[in-house]
């Protein structure tokens, strides 16, 4: 680091524009991330995203570990929504190794993925409301999510990083009676939804501040590579679960939620709709799990001496943030030769954010970032 220079303000030419560092140590920023904005008054005329605060070199350290060891590593790539990470890694390995996942395990994975989606959306919902000063929503959203974390804990033993989905299936079967408890929780969530609706979507503050904030059109979103709820908020019905289906998603009945506004409000509406759809999917998974029995994992070789055949695979998953990609190359050894993670927010947390911020006001930076649901750890990896 170079020596910090503090110029004497008296020697500087008068200027209308000034730079402001937004983050990383800032309550409005999502996670550990930073945006440098150039302001004229309180309007942003240029924004530069600055990441890397959460860089851990995942792709490198995964090359250093066995195929099984990496199962424990991958969920940490995206903290608020870790299950799609496990799923993508497991599926890429299955694609290379030609493993068959038993039907029951597939349904369990769908269950986990959708529960995780609910959690992530509740979290974003709370965070987004907090950025415009509505702290009650944050308290409610986070607490509701916590009840789902209890379910995760019961199934997997951990609240956040479950390390549950393994190549070839899941680690162990569901505990007794958990399906009933999930159902009860879903009912509770549904009872809560009208309250969230009142508190957020029918709130004059939200409608005023979120309408038209960070708007993008469908053409722009497609050209910029936006995926997930942010793309659907512009009216494009694209969803990896439908277009490039994995697991048992072809048998699942759900709607792709779209909105046409393309702004912060539309993005939150899409998330709300997705929570409703996720509840629907979870119910179907519960019904299926009541019928489908059998093993939850296929036979694997000794995990400590497990050489995957040479090859490569690109697995895509619809996470709560968008399209998540895992590209894995194996050279036939006990460790991956190369893992590349396409973080679901790598587009909308960097290039798209930089574009959307231009022309908006300084007080909307946090809101735009949260409404895009940017997840810095998966950008930095």
């Amino acid at each position, binding site marked *: *680091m170079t020596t910090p220079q503090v110029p004497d303000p008296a020697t500087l030419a008068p200027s209308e524009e000034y730079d402001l560092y937004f983050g990383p140590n800032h309550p409005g920023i999502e996670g550990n991330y930073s945006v440098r904005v150039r302001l004229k008054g309180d309007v942003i005329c240029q924004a530069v*995203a*600055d*990441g*890397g605060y959460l*860089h851990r*070199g995942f*792709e*490198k*350290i995964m090359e*250093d570990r066995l195929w099984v060891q990496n199962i424990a590593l991958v969920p940490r790539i995206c903290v608020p929504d870790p299950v799609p990470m496990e799923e993508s890694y497991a599926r890429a390995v299955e*694609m290379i190794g030609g493993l068959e996942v038993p039907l029951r395990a597939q349904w369990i994975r769908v269950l986990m993925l959708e529960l995780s989606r609910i959690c992530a959306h509740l979290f974003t919902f709370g965070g987004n409301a907090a950025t415009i000063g509505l702290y009650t929503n944050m308290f409610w959203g986070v607490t509701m999510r916590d009840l789902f974390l209890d379910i995760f804990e019961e199934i997997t033993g951990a609240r956040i990083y479950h390390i549950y989905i393994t190549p070839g299936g899941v680690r162990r079967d569901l505990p007794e009676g958990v399906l009933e408890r999930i159902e009860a929780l879903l009912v509770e969530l549904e009872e809560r939804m009208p309250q969230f609706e009142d508190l957020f979507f029918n709130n004059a503050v939200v409608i005023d501040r979120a309408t038209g904030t960070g708007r993008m059109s469908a053409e722009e979103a*497609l*050209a*910029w*590579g936006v*995926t997930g709820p942010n793309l659907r908020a512009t009216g494009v019905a*694209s969803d990896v679960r439908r*277009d*490039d289906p994995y697991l048992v998603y072809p048998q699942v009945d759900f709607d792709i939620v779209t909105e046409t506004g393309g702004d912060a409000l539309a993005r939150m509406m899409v998330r709300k709709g997705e929570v409703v759809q996720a509840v629907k999917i979870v119910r179907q998974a519960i019904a299926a799990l009541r019928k489908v029995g059998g093993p939850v994992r296929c036979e694997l070789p000794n995990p400590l001496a497990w050489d995957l055949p040479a090859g*490569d*695979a*690109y697995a*895509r998953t619809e996470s709560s943030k968008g*399209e998540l*990609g895992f*590209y894995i*190359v194996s050279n036939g050894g006990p460790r991956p*030769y*190369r893992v*590349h993670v*396409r973080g679901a927010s*790598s*587009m909308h947390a*960097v*290039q798209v954010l930089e574009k959307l911020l231009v022309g908006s006001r300084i007080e909307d930076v946090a809101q735009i970032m949260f409404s895009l649901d940017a997840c810095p750890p998966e950008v*930095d990896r």
Partner: protein
Amino acid sequence: MSIPARLNEVLNELPAIQARPAGARRVRVDVAPQGLPALLELLKGRLGFIHLSAISCVDWIEDGQFELVYHVWSHEMKLLVSCHVRIAREPGVYVSVHDIHEPAGFFERDIHEMFGVHFDGAPSMEKFILTSWEGPPPMRKDFNTRKHVEETFEWVDYRPDWLKDIERKGGGIES
């Protein structure tokens, strides 16, 4: 699994291309470095491969090559085409496809700082993640992260002297 006829038609228009199906809704295409921009352009214009999902880089150090993999997805055809090119590891220079797919800017910048591949014409080759890093591009195979860690950091001493003292007297935490 086979390659859809429409895709085959387009691929046949370009020289020196090998394509083969690689699983459900996946096609692998190997192309010479100079042919890639034209291929992406054709796929985008004719078959709707407008979504660049990712660009991955693989360091094949024994062959002295970098492999760049462009994953493009077509919302129309519901198909993922992975275009593989191999470029020489030294000097590691290639062209940017930012003018065809805007997301390429992010991935090229990432590959530049992790592997040191330079992309001509890219909008930005500045560091994004590793601004505090002065070593070699860390994702290259010849950079050994374990060795680097051993040289740079110190570990907690799990058996400090006072514990050894206690152990000598017959105590300690290990039975």
